[in-house]
């Protein structure tokens, strides 16, 4: 972009406008546009009796090239005229990060109020609550993975394996033993944590790319086991008729089985299918918020600081007497446990699970949420999940172009904010603040 001297002081000199240059640029753009449109727009296949026929649309091509040439010409003139507004570019992302650092609590509060009140808002139907449930599920998965990737810095490409372990643990225990959701949930979490440790052991010495490859393999192994262990998992047919959760023993059914009172009759309200949907939404919301509270708290404990230190420099950690084995394994286990919780929620919500639901793309989406949100940033995960999951749902009409838009958004964010949307780290401890508070103590 040629910013000429005359334009720097804000008074564009009309006489210095370079019409020839602009025309040249426009001509080049026109040639490019012609090259692109002649194939993509110029020809159209049509169904004709006796086979496919080709139809030419030269008028469309001419129109497209015309628009490009004229547009490019004026755009170049505009670039010549435009006075540079500010020499220093304001980085909106940076501004956003500092804003969040100061007002993050309030933004979180607004998010929370919105999330809690969502099902009661006017115009919100079953469909919207369903999407919100999906988004919150991914937020929870993102928060769980954030412990492993964001805090401990262990790039895990197989996180969906723990989601699957949680889902299958819940589904199998609940269908075989008929135990309630609240008993199966911690069991599913424990199973997933166990698998987290199982994965952790062989990868303790690996870092970066190598770790990513092994975790990717682990995710696939779990999926293939689920697919082939027919006697236990029912293979590709999946597990169906998974018990739905009840409201502390009150089922959400129009006509409950003998001896049980249903939710609507207990509270004396009209039966509505949205009760169950809303209950599931609140269930995942509570689970997700518990994950968040846990992460915020553990970050300020020695183990959380050790995770972050491990992410920064493992050798330095060893030299300070931090046991890298147990530190890494705890990160894997806790991250996996939350994945397992989310998995059992998924199973109870769907009522049916099969290995289809736990493919690599799920891991990729969860990882994308963590990375785009800003590694280690809790609110970043929320924003990224709303954008990625909510966004793809909103743009459902775009059909197959959805993934294209998804990819473009990812590229844009990585160019714009390579460290993620809200990559801002607050120290877990502050000396300055402490000094003020200890001064207060002295005064009293």
């Amino acid at each position, binding site marked *: 972009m040629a910013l000429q001297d005359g334009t720097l002081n804000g008074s564009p000199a009309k006489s210095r406008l370079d019409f020839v240059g602009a025309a040249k640029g426009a001509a080049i753009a026109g040639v490019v546009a012609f090259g692109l449109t002649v194939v993509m727009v110029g020809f159209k296949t049509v169904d004709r009796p006796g086979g496919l026929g080709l139809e030419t649309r030269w008028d469309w091509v001419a129109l497209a090239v015309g628009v490009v040439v004229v547009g490019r010409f004026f755009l170049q003139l505009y670039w010549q005229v435009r006075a540079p507004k500010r020499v220093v570019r304001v980085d909106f992302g940076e501004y956003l990060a500092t804003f969040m650092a100061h007002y993050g609590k309030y933004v979180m509060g607004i998010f929370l109020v919105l999330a809690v009140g969502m099902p009661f808002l006017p115009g919100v139907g079953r469909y919207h609550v369903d999407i919100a449930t999906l988004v919150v599920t991914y937020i929870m998965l993102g928060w769980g993975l954030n412990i492993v990737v964001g805090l401990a810095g262990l790039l895990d490409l197989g996180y969906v394996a723990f989601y699957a372990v949680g889902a299958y643990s819940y589904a199998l225990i609940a269908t075989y033993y008929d135990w309630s959701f609240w008993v199966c949930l911690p069991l599913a979490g424990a199973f997933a944590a166990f698998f987290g440790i199982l994965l952790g052991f062989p990868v303790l010495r690996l870092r970066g790319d190598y770790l990513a490859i092994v975790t990717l393999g682990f995710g696939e192994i779990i999926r293939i086991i689920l697919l082939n262990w027919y006697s236990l998992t029912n293979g590709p047919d999946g597990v169906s008729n998974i018990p739905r959760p009840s409201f502390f023993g009150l089922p959400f059914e129009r006509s409950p089985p003998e001896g049980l009172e249903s939710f609507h009759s207990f509270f004396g309200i009209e039966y509505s299918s949205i009760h169950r949907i809303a209950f599931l939404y609140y269930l995942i919301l509570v689970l997700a918020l518990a994950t968040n509270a*846990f992460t915020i*708290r*553990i970050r300020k*404990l*020695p*183990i959380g*600081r*050790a995770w*972050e*230190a491990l992410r*920064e*420099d493992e*050798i*330095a*950690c*060893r*030299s*300070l*007497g*931090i*046991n*890298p084995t147990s530190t890494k394994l*705890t990160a894997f286990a806790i991250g996996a446990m939350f994945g397992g919780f989310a998995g059992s929620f998924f199973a109870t919500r769907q009522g049916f699970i099969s290995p289809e639901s736990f493919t690599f793309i799920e891991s990729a989406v969860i990882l994308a949420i963590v990375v785009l949100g800003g590694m280690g940033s809790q609110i970043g995960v929320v924003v990224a999940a709303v954008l990625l999951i909510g966004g793809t749902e909103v743009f459902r009409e775009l059909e197959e172009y959805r993934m294209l838009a998804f990819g473009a958004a990812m590229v844009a964010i990585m160019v714009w904010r390579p460290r993620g949307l809200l990559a801002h*780290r607050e*120290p*877990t*401890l*502050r*000396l*300055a603040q*402490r000094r003020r508070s200890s001064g207060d103590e002295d005064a009293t």
Partner: protein
Amino acid sequence: MNDGAAKALLTVDHLTMRFGGLVAIDDVSFVANDTQITAIIGPNGAGKTTVFNCLTGFYAPTVGRLALDARHGMFLLERMDDFRITQRARVARTFQNIRLFPAMSVLENLVVAQHNRLMRASGYTIAGLLGFGSYRRAERDAVERARYWLDQVRLTDRADINAGNLPYGAQRRLEIARAMCTDPVLLCLDEPAAGLNPRETAELNELLLFVRNDHKIGILLIEHDMRVVMGISDHIVVLDYGRKISDGTPEAVRTDPAVIRAYLGEEEDEELPPEVAADLHLDGDGT
């Protein structure tokens, strides 16, 4: 010079480290005394850092015994994992190329160094998660200890900025403070004066003397800067090509013909006064 009746803290016996066919350290034995500063010097590639890596468990020595006889017990370092050496035997180290946690604050760097004590206080996370008062007290103590060391290395006013944003000299000081926060009985410093200007070097000398005199711990020092080595060492070990060629007080080492030969080469050893000999290698290796 310290009092004469110094007790041996670290005894290195017949330490040998081979990497395939390469002998990095060849049968080195020396003693580092408690509450004394022992310097290991030698030309580049003499095996000084390898000695440190064996000592702190980053390498398992091929042959040899590394015995630490501290107030809290006797430890054979060659049999211990690297992190246990810091945790149990309480040997702390710094690195030639600084290894801080750059994206964490200065204060956090010092609190991470107190990990094991805090882990115990937080009931291995469970009591901490539940918010027991005992953990909060332990954390307050950890911050107080960190503040003490921040005061010693004059970084208190920069406690809340990221360690990676500190200037180079401050990073070196922070790394020493961080090692001290692990509450060591032996502090191993790998070229702490590298890249420091003369004023910072003088301050480093003072800090190390303060650590030795007030905290009564042994310091093992690798250093090229003779202002540091000759200024504060109680005892010097000279390595060359993985072998120990001299061992003694600064005065004895300074005049040892073997040392002068190692630094300046064979021929001209008689002509040069020892001060020059000791300083000359600063301009490059004398081969």
